[in-house]
């Protein structure tokens, strides 16, 4: 029965492969990210050769170089940063709630941001104030959920989850109300915001900095997260300071989500599925999972955003639609390959 044995081998390999080759994984993910970013800079109405891209980045003059430096590069980096932020936040939320179905939006962060952003749009505010308002809405939702869930000090994840889901539902109702009441001329941009749209993202550096800082902050505690994922009680008995860790996780995941939603709106799918994709291939060790998810999420959103602005050019598609169109088949393929059937 060599075939069966081989199947068994390939099933058990992820953990071992991961142990042997973290550098190989990093190399693959980094080069995929570089390729995606390069494609984002090359693709578009104005054709640019790959070699010219490097010249443009080095500061060359000319029309093509300006397009790359001032339009495509910020947008590509914003998409990359947000993909990374969402995938990292999703991975953290899944550990915090010990629920594989958790995503960055489950606790109402994106709902709060949507209420803020759409409210500002309804009032006809400038883009800057839409961003400010979205971030404020996300923070308000975070504090509200935390305050309500923390109320009696018990802070079980069921209580947190329920509170978050209810706040998210309330925000959803408020968003629907605003869409119904908004003047027709603004409804389109409001809908685009909700589906996720990187076209207006002009300042990617803060989001990239947040992503980098978050990874630096999380990595020393990644093994603690491995322990926490297996139950709060055992984690405490193993010396993990669960109370502090959970609050830090909650605040960090919320801030990452808020940053991303502020920059590109509520792009769906990345935060839920990228951690699962990575988990299916590399296993559930957070020390590998979190940085890998950040890179893979950034790559996926960069690809999706580039596709969103090129496949039907000059028509721009909402990037959230593309993330789902790319991610769903990949996810289903990996799931069907995985004999365990459990993501």
């Amino acid at each position, binding site marked *: 029965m060599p075939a069966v044995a081989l199947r068994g081998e390939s*099933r*058990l390999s992820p*953990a*071992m492969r991961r142990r042997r080759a973290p550098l190989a994984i990093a190399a693959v993910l980094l080069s995929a990210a570089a390729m995606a970013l390069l494609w984002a800079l090359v693709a578009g109405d104005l054709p640019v050769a790959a070699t010219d891209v490097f010249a443009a980045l080095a500061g060359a003059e000319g029309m093509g170089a300006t397009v790359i430096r001032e339009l495509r590069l910020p947008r590509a980096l914003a998409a990359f940063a947000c993909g990374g932020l969402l995938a990292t936040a999703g991975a953290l939320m*899944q550990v915090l709630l*010990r*629920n*594989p179905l958790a995503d960055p939006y489950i606790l109402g962060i994106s709902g709060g941001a949507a209420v803020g952003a759409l409210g500002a749009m309804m009032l006809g505010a400038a883009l800057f104030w839409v961003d400010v308002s979205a971030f404020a809405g996300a923070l308000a939702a975070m504090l509200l959920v935390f305050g309500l869930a923390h109320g009696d000090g018990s802070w079980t994840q069921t209580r947190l989850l329920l509170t978050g889901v209810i706040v998210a539902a309330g925000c959803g109702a408020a968003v629907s109300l605003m869409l119904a009441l908004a003047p027709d001329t603004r409804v389109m941009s409001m809908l685009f915001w909700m589906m996720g749209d990187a076209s207006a993202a002009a300042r990617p550096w803060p989001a990239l900095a947040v992503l980098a800082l978050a990874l630096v902050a999380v990595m*020393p505690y990644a*093994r*603690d997260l*491995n*322990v926490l*994922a*297996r*139950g709060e*009680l*055992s984690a*405490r*008995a*193993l*010396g*993990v*300071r669960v109370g502090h860790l959970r609050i830090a996780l909650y605040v960090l995941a919320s801030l990452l989500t808020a940053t991303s939603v502020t920059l590109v709106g509520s792009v769906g799918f990345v935060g839920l599925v990228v951690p699962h994709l990575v*988990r299916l291939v590399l*296993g*559930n*060790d957070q*020390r590998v999972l979190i940085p890998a998810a950040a890179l893979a999420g950034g790559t996926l959103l960069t690809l999706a955003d580039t596709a969103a602005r090129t496949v039907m050019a000059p028509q721009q598609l909402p990037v959230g639609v593309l993330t789902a169109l790319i991610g769903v088949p990949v996810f289903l393929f990996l799931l069907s390959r995985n004999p*365990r059937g*459990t*993501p």
Partner: protein
Amino acid sequence: MNAARRALPVDDAPLLEAERLALEVGERWLCCEFSLSLAAGECLVLLGPNGAGKTTLLHTLAGLREPTVGEVRIGGLPYAAWPALEAARFRGLLAQQQPDPFAASVLETVLVGRHPHLGRWGWEGPQDVAIARAALESVGLAGFEQRDVQTLSGGERQRVGIATLLAQAPRLFLLDEPLNHLDLHHQIAALELFQRLLREQGTARGSVLVLHDINLAARYADHIILLDGRGGVIAGDRDAVLRADLLGQAFGHPLRRIEHEGRAVFLPD
């Protein structure tokens, strides 16, 4: 900090002490004030009906819950004086439930027990893997290393939990219903395993077990704490506590004590 570290644990102190301990949950007293002391090599069993507070008491002894009254000390020092990771190297808990929300291999799961032995940036090395494999072997799960924990049977999963605790290698084992889901053979094997660990030369280990089987308690315990579910506590040496009348009152069901080949056996009437 280093001085404090070197002071842990106090060498000749009992592994576990509870002083004038009392627990209240909600409006209900689970146990009135009592004291206990567990020396190296000793096994303490907590007995009592459902909901009597055995698990709450065990968690309090594990330092995971503040006692309402009194103090718990391990190695001569109260939990507050122990850094969390140091405490995790001294005492380990087998929880009643082992949730597995995510797929993971058996080996990875057992390696989680090595957490308190690794530094902030440390990765499990070959030595940790060897310890984990030995732990799996001692619970009869050699060859299960790469199985997904989500596909294990209840008894196998329970033994993975025991192996994780063995990989943690504490001196004080706190086991909440360690025989859950285990068949007869593995029940005895698990109890024998911990008894062997307690008697190993050159070590100073002890154990506290929550059990439901009075006869296994009679066979393996040195001391017994019997909770009656109404706040009453009877604590003492095995033979002083394991009396048919006391057990009958605590469990609300009459029992008969029978001597068989020098061993006491309790049968429900």
